[in-house]
C-alpha cells in the first residue's frame, strides 16, 4: 500500500496544458464521419419520398404537390438512414451539429426547385403510332 499515488498525475495535470478545449471560443472536434445534421440539395431532389419512408423517427415529410421537404430537427436522431437510401444522393450528412434552439419547434422547410426535364418526343414512335391507327 502506498500514499499519494495520484500526486504525480495531479502535478503533471496542474503544470501541463488543459485536457479540455475552450468551447465555444475553440470549435468542437469533428471527424469526416461525424453525424452532425442532414442537409438537402433542393435542386436535385426528385420528391420520391424514400427518406420519409425509411426515417425511423418519422422526422421527414415530403410533399409532392407543394414541393416541400420538411425536417423536424428535434425528432431527427441523425441515424444516416435517409442519406443511405436517397437514390439521387441529394441528401448529405453535415459534420457540424445543428445549433441549439430557443423555441420548441425544430421544423425546417425546404422548397424543392428540381424541375423534371421534358423528354424530347420520339419522332419515329409518333409516326409508327399514326401508321397503326
Amino acid at each position, binding site marked *: *500500500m*502506498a*500514499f499519494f*499515488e*495520484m500526486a*504525480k*498525475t*495531479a502535478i503533471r*495535470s496542474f503544470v501541463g496544458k488543459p*485536457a479540455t478545449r475552450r468551447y465555444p471560443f475553440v470549435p468542437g*472536434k469533428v*471527424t469526416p*464521419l*461525424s*453525424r452532425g445534421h442532414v442537409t438537402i440539395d433542393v435542386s436535385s431532389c426528385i420528391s420520391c419520398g424514400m427518406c420519409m419512408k*425509411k426515417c*425511423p*423517427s418519422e422526422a421527414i415529410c415530403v410533399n409532392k404537390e407543394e414541393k416541400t421537404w420538411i425536417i423536424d430537427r428535434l425528432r431527427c*436522431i*441523425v*441515424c*444516416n*438512414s435517409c442519406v*443511405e437510401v436517397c437514390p439521387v444522393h441529394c441528401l448529405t*450528412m453535415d459534420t457540424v451539429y445543428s445549433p441549439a434552439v430557443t423555441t420548441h419547434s425544430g421544423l425546417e422547410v425546404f422548397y424543392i426547385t428540381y424541375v423534371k426535364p421534358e423528354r424530347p418526343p420520339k419522332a419515329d414512335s409518333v409516326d409508327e403510332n399514326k401508321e397503326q391507327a
Partner: protein
Amino acid sequence: MSRQIVMPFGPQHPVLPEPIHLDLVLEDETVVDVIPSIGYVHRGLETLVEKRQFPEYVYIAERTCGICSFIHGMTYCQGVERVMGLEVPERAHYLRTIWSEYSRLHSHLLWLGLFADGMGFENLFMNAWKHREFVLDVMEETTGGRVIQGSCKVGGVRRDIDQETLKKMERDLKGFEKGLKEMANVFLNDDSIASRLRGVGVLSRNDAYVCGAVGPTGRGSGVPIDIRMTGYAAYGEVDFSPVVEEDGDCYARCAVRVNELFSSIEIIRQLIDRIPGGEIEVKVKGNPDGEYFSRSEQPRGELVHYVKGNGTKYLARSRIRTPTLTNIPPLVKMLQGCELADVPVIVLSIDPCIGCMER
C-alpha cells in the same frame, strides 16, 4: 434490541445519476434489510417493436442504454439474424467485436470515474474521464457517433474500418494503455481507496451464485461467469480468460473492472491483427418467423434480447433483460449488515444502469 427505523435512499440522491429507490431498515447505523423499488423511468421500448419495422428497431434497441448502446444493437441484430438464418460475413463479426470492446472500455472508465466521485476522489474522477475521451474519439472516427454509434444493422455492419485506420487504432492503444496503467495503480494500490473499499459490501461466492449475480459483480465474488466465453461474434477466435477476483468486496469488483480494461485492450489488439477481408454485410430477404434468445456480455454482465417474429415486417414480441435487474438481489444481500455510510459506495459497486433496466 434497539428500535428499527426505515430510511429512504433515492430516487434522488447525490451519488445516483439515475433513479432507484431503496428503503433501508436501520438499527442504529447498521442496515438490517433493504426493500428496493423500481419503475421511475419506464419508457415502454419493447412495445415499440410492434410499431417499427424490424430493421428500424435496431435504432430503438441501441437507445435502451446510453452507455453500452452498441452491444444492445448488436445483440438484437444477432437475434434477428439467427431467426432469419442469415450468415453474417466474418469481417462484420470482427468489426462488431472491436466496437463492443471499445464500448466496454468506455463503460468501465465511466464507471471508474463515477466510483471515484462517489468516494469523494474528484481528481481521479477527472482523470478517468480524460482517458474515456480517447475511446469516444475512436468511436466517432470509426462510426460517426460518440455514444450512439448506429453502425450495426441486421445482416452485418453499416461502416467498414480501412486498414490504415485499424493500424492507427492499434498504435494509439499503446499510449492509452500507458495512461491507464498509471490510473490503475491509483485504484489498486492507493491506501485511501483501499481503506474505503476493502471488506465493504462482501458478497460470498455462494450468495453470488444463488442470487444470480452476473458480470463483474459475479466475477468479483469468484464466479467465473462470462458470456464472451461462449464465442459469439468473433470472441471464439481470440484468446482470453475472464478476470476473476475472490474477495467479493467492493475492492474486488473495482479490481475486476480495472483489470478488464487491459483484457479488452489485449482482445482489440488480437482482433486487429487477425481481421479478415471481404464483405461487411449480407442482403436481407424476407421477414423473420420464429423466436430466439440472443445473449451477450455487456460491461455490466449478461444481456438477453428475446425476439419473436411472425412472418411480417413487424416483430410480434421483444423482451430485453439487462444485467442491472439481475444484480439487484445480490445488491440487497450485500447491503444487509453494512453501515449506513457505506450504502452509496456499495450501490455504485454493482454499476447500476437504471434507464437500461427499466427500458
